[in-house]
Structure formats: structure tokens, C-alpha cells
């Protein structure tokens, strides 16, 4: 049983790539970004309600920036009555939930409103969002009172495809999370993501690709709401087999056996006498040539 002093922080990183969402919404109108945000709010509220000490944070991962939807800098905490916009809880809900929901809505609206169209930046800044998440977790850990412990996990809801250029940053973030003891769970809506599979495998989280996006809320509540301690008691989807193969530097094919340059450690699928990265020359040993046995000339005749 978790003691009363143990905090559990759930950090949700939502991929709000407008290009992907816009295109998807045009194809399937039933599932749109609004529905996704609704489902996330349900998950967030449930998490806050599970335990008095639970905390929540939501980050939106955009092509241009990573933005904290909750908690927000613009929130002036305290007296709600003085704030005209939110006149307290309208439907008898727990105040914190109302505040959280309102903030999330407000912030996402502002975020999408200031989206600018840029051709080159079409990838979600996922590595950056994860880095911000880890910094937030670190800050909260430092602000704890003495004797309080905090367990944190990050849930990534991914929509767009992987971005290969963020690979290094991504791996650094994953290893940092592993060192900090932060789990990374992944809920993938569309394309399988090898990077997130690796992240979940390394940190000990859960990876799930959802077959039906309309039931997102149900998947979130069933699989990703329970704490890591409780997961051992539940029957959850088994871990995915992760493909850890490296990609060769020349063709970017995934290979199992290859040639590695001993100077610069670059990987190739075929042997080449000069390494193209560091220009070192290599020789490959040929099998020894067998000398033909000399036959002794026959004596006589």
C-alpha cells in the first residue's frame, strides 16, 4: 500500500501535430483532436481523484514548441471567486478538476491559435517535450518536503510518425529517464514507433498501439491509469518484441550482422576498403592459398 506521503505524478505528453491531426480529421471526422483532448482530460481527472496526493501535468508537443497545458504559468491560484471567467465549479465537481480542465482547454486554444504555417517544420518536437517533462519532474522532486517521496511516470500519446533527426536527443532523454527512475509509457494512435518501443523497454513502461482510436478513453483508463506498483497485479497487454537492430550508415537498412570501422565505429552492411566516414583504409585477410603439393618425379623409366 502506498503510504500517505507518497506522491504520484502523471505527466501526459500529447502529440498535437496540426498537420497530422488536420489530415486525420479530414479523413475520419469521428475522431478529432477535441475528442483526444477530452479523453486525456478524463484520464487526468481520474488520476487526480485516485489519491489525494496525486499530481498531474500535461504537455502539448507541437511542431514549433512544447507547451505546458497544465499547470500553466497564467494560472493565478487561490481565490476563484474573484476570477470572472471561472465562477467556481459549475457542476459540483472537485475544484481542482475544474481548474485543470479549464486550464487545459484554455491553453490548447491559445496554442493552436498561434500556430504558424511553416513548410520545413513538420515533425513533432517529441524529444524536446520529453526533456521538458524530465526537467519538470526534477524540479518538483526538489520542491518536495523532507520525507516525501515521489514516483513519476510519463505517458506519451503519439500521433505522427517518428522523426529520425531527433534520434540522439531521444536516446539521451530515455537514458536520463532510466537513471531517474521515471517510466515512459506510450500510447500510439497511428504508425508503430520504434523509438518509443525502445523507450518503454528501457525504462520499464508499457507500449500499446491502439486498434481503434474512437475508444481511446477506454484504453487510457484500462491500461495507463494504474500505478506501476499495481501493474504487476493486473493482466495487461504483454510487452512488444523490440527491434534493436542498428541501421547501416550507407543505406539505412536495419542489419543484424555488419562491418564496423574500428576507428570511428560507423556501421556498414558491405565491406569497403575505405571507411567513408573517417577515411581509414582497411585490408581484409584472404584465406591462405594452398600450395599445390609437388609430386616427386618417378624414378626410373
Amino acid at each position, binding site marked *: 500500500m502506498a503510504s500517505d506521503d507518497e506522491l504520484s505524478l502523471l505527466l501526459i505528453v500529447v502529440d498535437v501535430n*496540426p*498537420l497530422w*491531426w*488536420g489530415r486525420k*480529421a*479530414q479523413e475520419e471526422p469521428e475522431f*478529432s*483532436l*477535441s475528442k483526444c*483532448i*477530452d*479523453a486525456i*482530460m*478524463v484520464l487526468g*481527472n481520474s488520476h487526480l481523484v485516485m489519491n489525494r496526493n496525486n499530481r498531474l501535468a500535461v504537455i502539448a508537443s507541437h511542431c514549433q514548441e512544447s507547451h505546458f497545458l497544465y499547470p500553466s504559468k497564467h494560472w493565478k491560484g487561490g481565490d476563484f471567486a474573484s476570477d470572472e471567467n471561472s465562477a467556481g465549479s459549475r457542476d459540483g465537481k472537485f475544484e481542482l478538476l475544474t481548474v485543470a*480542465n479549464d486550464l487545459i*482547454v484554455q491553453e*490548447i*486554444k491559445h496554442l*493552436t*491559435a498561434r*500556430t504558424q*504555417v511553416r*513548410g520545413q517544420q*513538420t515533425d513533432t518536437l517529441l524529444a524536446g517535450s520529453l526533456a521538458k517533462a524530465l526537467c519538470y519532474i526534477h524540479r518538483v522532486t526538489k520542491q518536495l518536503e523532507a520525507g516525501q517521496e515521489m514516483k513519476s511516470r510519463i505517458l506519451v500519446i503519439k500521433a505522427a510518425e*517518428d522523426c*529520425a*533527426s*531527433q*534520434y*540522439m536527443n*531521444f*536516446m539521451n532523454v530515455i537514458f536520463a529517464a532510466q537513471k531517474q527512475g521515471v517510466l515512459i509509457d506510450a500510447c500510439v494512435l497511428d504508425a508503430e514507433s*520504434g*523509438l518509443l518501443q525502445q523507450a518503454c523497454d528501457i525504462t520499464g513502461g508499457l507500449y500499446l498501439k491502439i*486498434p*481503434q482510436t*474512437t*475508444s481511446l*478513453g*477506454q*484504453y487510457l483508463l*484500462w*491500461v495507463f491509469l494504474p500505478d506501476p506498483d499495481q501493474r504487476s497485479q493486473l*493482466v*495487461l*497487454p*504483454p*510487452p512488444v518484441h523490440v527491434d534493436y537492430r*542498428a*541501421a547501416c550508415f550507407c*543505406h*539505412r537498412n*536495419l542489419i543484424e550482422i555488419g562491418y564496423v570501422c574500428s*576507428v*570511428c565505429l*560507423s556501421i556498414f552492411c558491405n565491406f569497403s576498403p575505405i571507411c567513408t*566516414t*573517417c*577515411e581509414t583504409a582497411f585490408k581484409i585477410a584472404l584465406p591462405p592459398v594452398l600450395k599445390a603439393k609437388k609430386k616427386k618425379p618417378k624414378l626410373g623409366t
Partner: protein
Amino acid sequence: MTTSSEDVLLAIKRVRQKKQDGILFLMAERIAWTPEGKDRFTVSHLYADIRCQKISPDGKAKIQLQLVLHTGETTNFHFTNESSALKDRDAVKDLLQQLLPKFKRKTNKELEEKNRMLQEDPLLFQLYKDLVVSQVISAEEFWANRLSLNSVDSSLPNHKQEVGISAAFLADVRPQTDGCNGLRYNLTSDIIESIFRTYPAVKQKYAENVPHNMTEKEFWTRFFQSHYFHRDRISMGVQDLFSECAKLDDKGLKTMVGQGVKNPLIDLTSLDDQTLDEGYGVSSAPSSSGCTKSVKETSNTAIIKRFNLHSAMVLAAGLRKHEPQNEQNSETSSTDGNSRDSDFFQPPLKKVKLQEAIEYQDLKQENGKKTIALTLKKSERYSHGPVPVQSQPYTTSQDIINSVNYIKHEMDNYTPHLNHVLSSSAASSAITALSPGGLLMQGGAHQAINQMVPNDIQSELKHLYVAAGELLRHFWSCFPVNSPFLEEKVVKMKSNLERFHSSKLRPFQEKVQRQYLSTNLTGHLEEMLQASYSKFHMWQSKRMIRKT
């Protein structure tokens, strides 16, 4: 009764064994006992079998001798001859003491070694049981690799650790009252060694006197009786064996003090009673104008002197081996007996130590090590992840603009409807997919294998793996086959493997099948055995070709 070539070294009558009277014979190679009136020996032990002998203590009524064999058996002989029992027993004991060392078997060490190894490592024991006891492999092959490892180890214990001297060794020799006004001291060889190391004068005396003038026992009795040993070491008047030792000790202490302390940083002279001049452990010899002091003072200084000597000796005994002689000589030359000069003299060793304590290697300036920089031409290749280059869906700029506008529009009009997040049909389909056996839960069945197989089968499988591994190791180590010895070994190992296969693996498989376990537990073992069979056949066919 006795074989013709045996000569009887000693025959003792009236020796009882197991409540029967008889005669004890000591022959050239064995000791034997026959009951009174009988012809043959009922008890006979080769000297080689005897590990040690024990005698009953002197005070007891029964005079007995016990023989302990290597196997642990004991045989008791009770000497009942009224007049000469003790003499007889002692004669037997002495003879045995001379004879036993000659026959001490060296080869037994190996057996003991093997037993020890088997006892220490339960896995090895299990392997031994599986392979040797069930005749799959012979014992020599089993021990062939392992004993060779151990014979290397046996050379290591030669570098025994030097044992230091316990500072309380004399106090540990606690005397026990012997009943009638006497004191009994128990001396072990450790204590004797400590006494010799701390007081070399005593060692000298021992070497001089034992065994010419007196026995060991007498020597030690005198030692403990001497005033040298006791507190009040006022050794005037009483002419003792050890009064010289006291003088020698004083001399030794004087020279030690004269040498000074070599490394003042481990300075103990500040604890000294006498006031020293300013300086580093160098002092003149304490003024030995003992006659002017009172008797009490004399005895106090005597005790303190003894303690100092004792401690100095104990410390020196530990260091004596490691300090080279040159160091000693150089130090004595630099530190004179005069205390005045010590202010100007810094013993070099002290300086070095201080220097070490002050400087940190990390903080010094780097003496730039010459390094060769790596020149990379296309370093962006490293940062590309293992994401294979796939064809991306073509997005025109128009698409981008459309998507962005759509989202902007949607979010503008966004109000959360948390009541309508999920329809019940969607929820139930998701739940079905997540329930055991559902779409997303397919991979789970593989994990339960270690829960499906009972524990005893698992452990038996482990034993099989260990045994098979051992056999396969022997087999594969024969290749490449260079010598006729290896050829024979290969053939033998192949037959061993087949025997293992039929005698151990097949019954296990059948047992598993009988228990309706559908999992293929022995598949991998079979693969390994098949690989070795095919290698053997290949080698055999090659050999045939070469011969023809």
C-alpha cells in the same frame, strides 16, 4: 600368522582390545593385534593407513593408546600389564612416532582434495553423481580437467600470510590452578612463537639450553618462575637463567631509542613519560641514575620500560621483514644522538609524506598528452536513428495549409464534452480486445512456461543441461584432432554422448510426455547432441578418405 618377510619390531603382551586380552605386534609396515591364544591377527593396520595416534592423559587409571585411521575409524588398545604398562605404552608410542612419518601417504591428499571439492560445490557433486555414478563417463576423465586446476592452487599457500603478534599473548597464558598449590600454564606453539619473536634473548637461551641441559618443559617452568617474567623485575641478587635477558633487553631498548623514530608522522614519542627536548623523537638516553630515585619510582619506571620495550618489539617484529637495511643505516646517520641538531634536520621521509599529503595530482597542470584527433567527414550519419528510410506520404504545401486551418478552426470552437467521451459500444469492444485472449493479449501465453512446468522437472532439466554441457565440452575440446590420444578420446566421447542420450535424455522425454506437457523441453538438448553427432560423422568420413 606373519608373512615371512616381516620382522617384528616390538611385541607387547597383555594388551586389551575390545575387552579381550591379547598381544600387540609392531611390524616393519603394520601394527597388528591378536587375541590371547589365537593364531591370526584380528586387527591389523598398515602404517600408511594411520592418520595419527592418541594417548590417554597421564593422570588416568587406564593406560590407553588410540589409533585414528584416515577413514576416521579408531582402534583402542588398553595396556594392562601391572608393572610396565606405562613403559609399554610409551615404547609403542615412540616407535609409532618414528615409523608413521615414513609411511605417510601422499596420494591420499588427492582423495581428500577430491572429497573436499565435491562437498564444497553441490553442483559439481550433482554432476559427478549424474555422470560417473551412472557410468556414462569414467572417473578419471571427470577429474582430468578439474584436478589440474587445483594443483596450481596448491602452490599458492606457500606464501602464507605473516601472522602478527597479539599484544596480549602473555596475558592470555592464563594459569590454571592445578589443585595442589601449583599453577598450570598452557603453552601452545603460537604463544611460544610470539615469545620468541618479542624477546629474542629468550629464543637464544632456548637454543642454548634445550635439549642439552634441560627439557622443554623444564625450560618453560623456569621461565615462568623467573622474575624476568613477573611484574617486579628487580632482578638483583637472584641468579637466574633469565637475568641476563633483562640486561639484554635494556641494551636493546637503549639502541632503539638511540636510533630515533624514522617516520615522525607516526610519532609515538609524544606519549613518552620522560620529557624530551624539542625535536623529532631524538632524545638522549634516559638518565639512569636509578639509585637516587625511590624504590617505588624504580619499580614504576621498570614496568613502564617493560611496556615500552614490549610494544616496540611487537611493532618492530611486524615490520622487520619489509624494511630494507639501507634505510635504517641512512636514517641513523642523519639523526644524531644530539637533540640540538634536530631542529635543522628534516628527516627526508617526513618531507616526502608531507608532500604527498599536500599535493593532489588532479589539481596539477595537465602535461598535455599528445592525442590524435578523429577526422570525420560525414558526422551527421551518427545522429540518424535506426529508422529505415521510408517513403513519406507526399504532402503538398496546400495540404499543410489546409490542415493547419482546419485545426485552428476546430480548436476555436472547442468545448469539452466530458460526458460524451466514449460510446458504450466502443468501450466494450476495447474491453474485449484487452481481456485475456483478446486481440491485444496474444503474446501473453509464452510467458507462462515456467509456471506450467513443475519444479522437479525444471530442476531435472537443469541437471541434464549441466551434465550434457560437461560431456559436450569434453567432446568439442578434442577438435581439431591432432593426436592419436585425441582420436581415441573423440570416439570414446561419442559413445559417451550416445549413452547419455539413451540412458538419461530419452527417459526424461518420456516422463515429460507422460505428464501431458506439450512443451518441447528437450529440443535444444537434442539439437546440441545432433550437432555433435554430425560433426563426428563428418570427421570420421574425412578420416576414411584420408586413409584410402
